[in-house]
């Protein structure tokens, strides 16, 4: 009888120990998940920071390209305009004559 009681006690202790082990395992698993969530939040923040930095770099790069190309276009246009102005200047007398012929009512030969 005494032996049976002793055996039952040991079985109960083993069951209690087993329950604790399972609970600890569950707690350990939950902690793993919390750590993973924290790691993901960190990754998310790093990604946001990286995206912001990349967006700024891209915007600056394209803006600079646009301004450089635009300046080249303007430079060329100014040179062409200057050539055009010189050509027009050299032909001004002919243009004035063309106007005078018409407003003075002269016949064009």
């Amino acid at each position: 009888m005494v032996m049976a009681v002793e055996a039952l006690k040991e079985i109960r202790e083993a069951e209690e120990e087993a329950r604790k082990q399972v609970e600890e395992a569950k707690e350990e698993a939950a902690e793993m998940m919390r750590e993973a969530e924290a790691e993901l939040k960190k990754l998310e923040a790093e990604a946001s920071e990286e995206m912001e930095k990349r967006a700024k770099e891209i915007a600056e790069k394209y803006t600079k390209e646009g301004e450089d190309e635009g300046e080249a276009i303007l430079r060329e246009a100014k040179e062409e305009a200057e050539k055009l102005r010189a050509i027009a200047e050299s032909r001004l007398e002919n243009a004035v004559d063309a106007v005078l012929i018409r407003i003075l009512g002269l016949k064009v030969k």
Partner: protein
Amino acid sequence: MHVGASEIVERIKEDAREERARILREARAEVEERVKNAKADIEERKKRFIESERQKAADNKERIIRAKRLDAKKFRWDVEERAIKRAFDEALERIQHVKEEGFRGKSYSSILAGLIKDAAMSITAGSERSSSSSSELEVALSNEDAQFVTDEMLKNISAEVGCDVRLSSERIKTVGGVIVRRSDGRIEVNNTFEERMKRLYPGLREDVVRVLFRAREA
């Protein structure tokens, strides 16, 4: 310990170890899967975001270039417009010189005579079948230009156009040229230079553009 109880205790301990191992294994797998999925999602969002930012930046670049191209066109347009305006302004300024020196071998008097005759012919052609007042035309001009018109000149023009052309007592304010009108005032041809320039401007502008910018280099 009773042999049967000992086995039971061992069994309980073994089950507990297995359960613990299972719980931790499954938790690790779940964590691994969630991290893997989250990382893939972050990478995909990063890729889409960067592409969208690149597109926005490229659009902005094109906008900058388009604006500069427009400025470039404006440079050319400004040069052209200034040169065209200068040709017209100088032509009007040159009138004074024409009055003194003539133009292309023609005296200013003969130029005025041509303008009077053209105007008179236009009026008589338009009023051949109308009233008798069409046989009288008046020539109005500025004080300065009046000295270039002689009675003999008007007589010759009258003979050529077949009606009486005489000098009006009216003096007009103009750079030069004439206004010819029927004596009843119903028909008038304004051949002052300012008016002719206005009237002929579209064609004249084309001529000036051709001479200034399209003529072959000498």
